[in-house]
């Protein structure tokens, strides 16, 4: 079902035995995952299964309770803050709500990472920013404020900011949420184009199967604290396991239960013992 396991050199991200407990709830219980270099890897799974938390682990925003997360040869759980910041300079992160700096214009938002880390002449900063804005189709919106943009435009500005320093990897956290079909297609096209033209490794966290199938090279299905299936999009879409069948067919009940864990229904209604 799955493609050949990548070797160390092929993997930009390598996770082994990841275990995370948050507020007494086990989020990950022995996750093993490899993200190959240069490809688009999608992390899919039911809501609340910890996809964004997994991205927070990869970027060192959250330390695991156990296990190793190796990104570009560095164990992000063990490196110091300076090394972590140096690593983050090579990673672009597209937040779920885009997280643009609301006091800054589109231009200043995209220029922000350049101004913070590089002492470049203003003319060069301007040219780089305009190039990136041109790539996402928003060169004409450079002087607008984030509050003046539509949801799709905000997402594209955030994408321009994420790629402004030509990162080795981009993490897209739910990039399709709330987008109309036109904006969704624009984002899909950008993800594919950036991956192909810049050779960036992309990690895509999303629910939208149809959209993901159009761009992803690999899909990992995360559920119940583990990677329950992984492989090519077409393979997983066939639904050969209960997990993939439920997720990709959109079945309401299955390995991911419809009901949140609760005490016995009859007992709670005061009707005596019995099964719910």
């Amino acid at each position, binding site marked *: 079902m799955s493609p050949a396991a990548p070797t160390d050199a092929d993997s930009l991200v390598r996770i082994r035995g990841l275990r995370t407990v948050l507020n007494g709830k086990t989020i990950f219980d022995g996750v093993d995952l490899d993200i190959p270099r240069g490809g688009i890897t999608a992390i899919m799974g039911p809501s609340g299964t910890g996809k964004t938390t997994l991205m927070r682990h990869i970027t060192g925003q959250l330390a695991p309770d156990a296990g190793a997360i190796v990104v570009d040869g560095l164990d992000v759980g063990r490196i110091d803050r300076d090394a972590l910041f140096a690593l983050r300079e090579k990673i672009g992160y597209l937040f779920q709500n885009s997280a*643009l700096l609301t006091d800054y214009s589109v231009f200043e938002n995209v220029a922000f990472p350049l101004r913070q*880390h590089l002492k470049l002449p203003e003319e060069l900063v301007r040219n780089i920013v305009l190039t990136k804005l041109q790539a996402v189709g928003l060169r004409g919106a450079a002087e607008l404020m984030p509050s003046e943009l539509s949801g799709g435009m905000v997402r594209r500005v955030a994408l321009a900011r994420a790629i402004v320093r030509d990162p080795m990897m981009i993490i897209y956290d739910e990039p399709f949420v709330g987008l109309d079909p036109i904006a969704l297609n624009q984002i899909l096209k950008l993800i594919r184009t950036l991956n192909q033209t810049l050779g960036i490794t992309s990690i895509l966290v999303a629910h939208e199967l149809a959209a993901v199938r159009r761009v992803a090279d690999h899909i990992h299905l995360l559920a119940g604290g583990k990677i329950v299936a992984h492989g090519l999009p077409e393979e997983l879409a066939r639904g050969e396991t209960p997990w993939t069948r439920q997720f990709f067919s959109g079945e309401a009940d299955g390995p991911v239960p419809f009901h949140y864990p609760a005490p016995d229904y009859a007992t709670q209604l005061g009707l005596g013992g019995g099964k719910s």
Partner: protein
Amino acid sequence: MSAMRPIWSPLRDGLAQIGACGIFLFRILRAIPLSLRYLRETVRQIFFVGAMSLIIIMTCGLFVGMVLGLQLYHTLSIFGGTAALGTVVALSLYRELGPVVTALLFAGRAGTSITAEIGLMRATDQLDAMEMMAVDPLAFVVAPRFLAGVIAMPILACVFNGLGILGAHLVGVSWLGLDNGTFWSNMTANVDVWDDVINGLWKSTAFGAVVTLIATFQGYTTAPTSEGVAYATTRTVVFSSIATLMIDFVMTAFLM
């Protein structure tokens, strides 16, 4: 034991908050050298928390001085001591009212704005985005606001004191007919620069540090929801006011 819980729990939470705030102060102080790179941001913040607070500080200073002048004139006239009006007003303002009222006004005007701004940045992932762009939000966002508060507060207190004395002069001299020379000469003869003026400025500096520390801490650690930001803003005013008055007592005891 269970009866103790309602009393013990808030006390324990309060102590935990004070401890966390202390650690936060240490992290700010450690980030200050790096924040000097963002000098423009610090200057911008001095404008926002300092210059933008001038109207309220000047208005309140003027009226506090006018009320002081009116109250003290009538009280002093009972003892035939109206000549001491300038001295008493100046000492009240320099030693206590100037620093304390400025700090309370600053907490309401600038402290709440700092908390709400940083809290919204937290709620909209802007602080996380900075972390992801390898920019330390403590150095870029928090430290400039902290420095701005420490720098702006003594200046605002000076403005408050100046307007307060002017208000007292308006009431005592221009309205109630006290001799102008008596007002100023008694004041200049009895107010000591080091014991009164400089000690007041020390207090203001300490209040500036405490109020902005509380404001930034509340914003930085707020729950990322609209309700969380609202609570954090309220806590800023309440905790800043209490802390200001407590520290005022301690500093007064040491500085007298």
